[in-house]
């Protein structure tokens, strides 16, 4: 069942490419300084968080600015991409109800453009990492692998949730609440160490936390990610993608009836 579906997707690769380019154009062409605008939001968040954590809470974290910015950039990628995936099928209903386009094209293009945005977000991130900390190490070469794991994980989540959003109209609201909760149990802007010992299992059970640590280690610690984090992140990404693909495949036969 997966084999022919994959082959069909490959034959539509030019369409996927076109959809990604279109998404990026919409995001960056609208205003002359579109690129700056998208970078401004995480940077302002970073400044605010740095002020709050290091000045008000007097919490000393090494390289907190980079730590926070890496967390915010990652979280924005994950939450925005999952949310766009929820809209990706419904938003193309006109097309999907009329033409035999493989439906997975839309969530895949959404995740790819999200990944490109994450890569663009590395520009200010690396600049601040260089400006505020010790020199970057060779561990940075691991970053593409981290981004790949994040992409696989997010695609799995997107494929799992996109059909649900077609069938149930309140999926978007439910997912946005779940994302908010997920953000607080993921060390996005707080360091893992401040979580009290008896609550730490929550963070440990959260696979997204591992995916985030794998992304953050080369940037903030200038080191390769911890083996346990890497193992949890990789395994959960693969399992989530398999689960998402399975749900997407079995629902996609009937999905058009709900559009």
């Amino acid at each position: 069942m997966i084999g022919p579906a994959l082959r069909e997707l490959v034959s539509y690769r030019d369409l996927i490419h076109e959809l990604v380019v279109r998404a990026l154009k919409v995001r960056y062409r609208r205003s002359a300084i579109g690129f700056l605008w998208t970078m401004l939001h995480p940077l302002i968040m970073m400044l605010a968080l740095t002020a709050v954590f290091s000045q008000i809470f007097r919490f000393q974290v090494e390289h907190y600015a980079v730590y926070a910015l890496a967390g915010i950039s990652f979280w924005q990628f994950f939450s925005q991409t999952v949310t766009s995936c929820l809209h990706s099928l419904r938003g193309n209903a006109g097309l999907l109800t009329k033409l035999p386009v493989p439906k997975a094209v839309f969530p895949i293009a959404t995740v790819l453009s999200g990944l490109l945005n994450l890569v663009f977000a590395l520009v200010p991130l690396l600049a601040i990492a260089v400006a505020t900390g010790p020199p970057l190490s060779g561990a940075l070469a691991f970053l593409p692998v981290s981004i790949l794991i994040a992409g696989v994980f997010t695609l799995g989540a997107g494929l799992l949730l996109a059909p649900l959003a077609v069938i149930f109209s309140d999926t978007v609201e439910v997912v946005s609440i779940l994302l908010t909760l997920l953000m607080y149990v993921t060390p996005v802007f707080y360091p893992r160490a401040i979580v009290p010992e008896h609550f730490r299992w929550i963070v440990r059970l959260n696979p997204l936390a591992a995916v985030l640590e794998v992304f953050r280690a080369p940037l903030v610690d200038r080191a390769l990610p911890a083996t346990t984090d890497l193992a949890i992140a990789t395994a959960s990404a693969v399992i989530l993608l398999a689960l998402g693909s399975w749900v997407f495949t079995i629902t996609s036969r009937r999905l058009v009836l709900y559009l």
Partner: protein
Amino acid sequence: MNPVADLIRLEAVSMKYRLAKQRQPSLKQYALHWLRGALVYEDLWALSNVSLRIGRGESVGIIGRNGAGKSTLLKVISRVIAPTRGRVDVGGRVVPVLGLGAGLDMELSGLENIYLNAMVLGRSRREIKAACDEIVTASGLGDFIMSPLRNYSAGMVARLAFSVATAWTPEILILDEVLTVGDASFVERCHQHLQRFRESGTTVLVVSHLPAEIRESCQRCIWIDAGTIRQDGATDDVLESYARFNEARRASILVRA
């Protein structure tokens, strides 16, 4: 009946739409109803036990009232939806031209839309590049090709979409109420295109509730009513019974009133 190989073959195809008695478009309501064990569905058979064969190069008209199952039949043939029961064999690439403009983006220019629309139809970038000039010429849009579609008139959008859909000779072309938009010269050009396709072996399905349009372009006609094939045969015969049926229905409504 057909000396040529069948290109489209449907065997006992049925399509069921499951309508929930309680509308449960949300997770919350679904969960509540599920907990109470009160999920009741009403089945609506949009197609029931439809079998038909259409050969290569045939032009077939499909006629019927609104809600008779015409669109469902076309969606099954173009593989947009899978039927609940039955077998569907379609031996070629289907290019549906439905209502014209599916997959067009009003914010993008005509040229960008040519690429997007052709890719949605499964064409590769290389194929489109090779055919692009021809498509632009065929659309007759001239310099407008560089401006966004929101500046186009409905007729211009139709011309663009039709030029893309017909740039490559399709194996199966589905025209769903297409020729009702556009001016006389556009319709004239559409007919020329159709003629050319027919000569090169394209199977054309024309869907309409206007008998005149089908009479002009099809020798065979299928009349669909309440999800079943009411009649399948020579266009003139089928259109005649369809007209008689409609008249009788109109008369009975008048009597009741």
